[in-house]
């Protein structure tokens, strides 16, 4: 019987070790300093005769993830100077089935897309985005800064798909604190409750097809949107 007591304690020890390892791995997940950014409430708005809860989100795309944002907060602690990143966070929260207006300040340069299709706006209200005041449905696939592409996790909002291409800044103006970033505004109707994923579909990373580096490292050009 004594043996079994020892076996039990061995089990407990193993469980503790596993727990510790688990916590270690879990802690590797990138946590943005700004935490989960919750969309600002703008009351209600009417679209096609239907009343929606109206919220807004402001994001920026920076060329140098190791730098700081205009407000002095770090963009991506431990970031790599040659890696771009979204700011202020990579985790957002918006209410379900509401009218979300997103404004993205684009500080980065651009190049051609791997897949020209992502130069087309998809899933926004009336399928357009407003770039520096001009409403567009599509921009040149050869000059793309980044894209904001969003869809549901498996089994969530299967009808929901959002893609907005972000035009680039001319090379000399590129900087985390550029005076006049490209400003892209668009609105979409958020899907049902659940966890959504967003990422950039422009090859702004290193290595094969430009999808290594920042693109394959969680937290730079990728994140989640909680729809509650």
């Amino acid at each position, binding site marked *: 019987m004594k043996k079994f007591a020892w076996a039990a304690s061995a089990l407990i020890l193993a469980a503790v070790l596993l727990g510790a390892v688990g916590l270690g791995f879990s802690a590797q997940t990138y946590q943005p300093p700004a935490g989960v950014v919750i969309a600002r409430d703008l009351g209600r708005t009417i679209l096609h005769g239907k009343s929606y809860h109206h919220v807004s989100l402001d994001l920026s795309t920076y060329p140098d993830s190791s730098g700081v944002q205009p407000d002095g907060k770090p963009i991506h602690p431990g970031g790599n100077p040659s890696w771009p990143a979204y700011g202020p966070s990579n985790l957002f929260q918006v209410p379900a089935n509401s009218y979300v207006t997103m404004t993205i300040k684009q500080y980065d340069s651009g*190049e*051609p897309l*791997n897949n020209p299709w992502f130069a087309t706006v998809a899933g926004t209200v009336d399928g357009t985005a407003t770039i520096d005041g001009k409403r567009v449905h599509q921009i040149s696939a050869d000059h793309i800064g980044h894209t904001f592409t969003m869809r549901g996790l498996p089994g969530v909002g299967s009808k929901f798909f959002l893609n907005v291409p972000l035009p680039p800044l001319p090379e000399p103006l590129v900087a985390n604190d550029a005076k006049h970033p490209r400003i892209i505004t668009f609105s979409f109707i958020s899907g049902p409750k659940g966890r959504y994923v967003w990422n950039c579909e422009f*090859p702004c990373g*290193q290595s*094969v*097809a*430009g999808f290594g580096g920042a693109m394959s490292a969680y937290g730079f050009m990728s994140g989640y949107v909680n729809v509650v």
Partner: protein
Amino acid sequence: MTLIDEQHGASATGGHHESVEDRDLKERIALWLFIAGDGVFFLLQVFSWFYLKGLNVHGMWRGAACSVSAACTLGDGSDLTHIVPKAASWHSLTVAGLVILSAACIWQAEVRARKEQNRGETVAWVSLGLVTLIAGIAVLCLQFTALPFKTISGTYASVFIFFMGSVIAHLCLTLFIGLAVWNRLRRGSANLKWQLQLRLARVWWVWVAFSGAVLALVSTYFA
């Protein structure tokens, strides 16, 4: 339990009596097994050459790539700027020739050792073989500096350079064996076993010469 008598030199854990012939048998089988494995490696190299050439993905078998592969984007073929020139054939062929020559020398040495038990001549032939081998390695290094393309210049360049790398690796291993055999013969520390060891070296040498020659021919005449 009889303990070993020292004349018989190296034996496994030393404790047991092992005749030179037994030892040689083991080493010969082991060598052939190793060559069999290396043969698979060799065949797969040739396979990659013809597979990539046949597929010629994106027209890049001998199409030059953009300056750094990291910056390569897919899709539009804009990376294809010009046709990669073939490497000068004389390097590869010279290397192959030299290695075959050195294998022949080792073969001679082995014959001398077996037929006449003549240590002096044997050492001479082995030395000759080593010199030609080193010459081969030298030419190979020269070829590296003289290549008309870079590693990033498409698949032809890739496989070509990979071939060179694998040949260099084989030649260095051969050099190690050759030096050891030469040194042991010279010092006379390869006592009873000397021509047996020489025979093993010869087998390996011939295989390296053969595989190296085939790679040279493939990369020269099937570009």
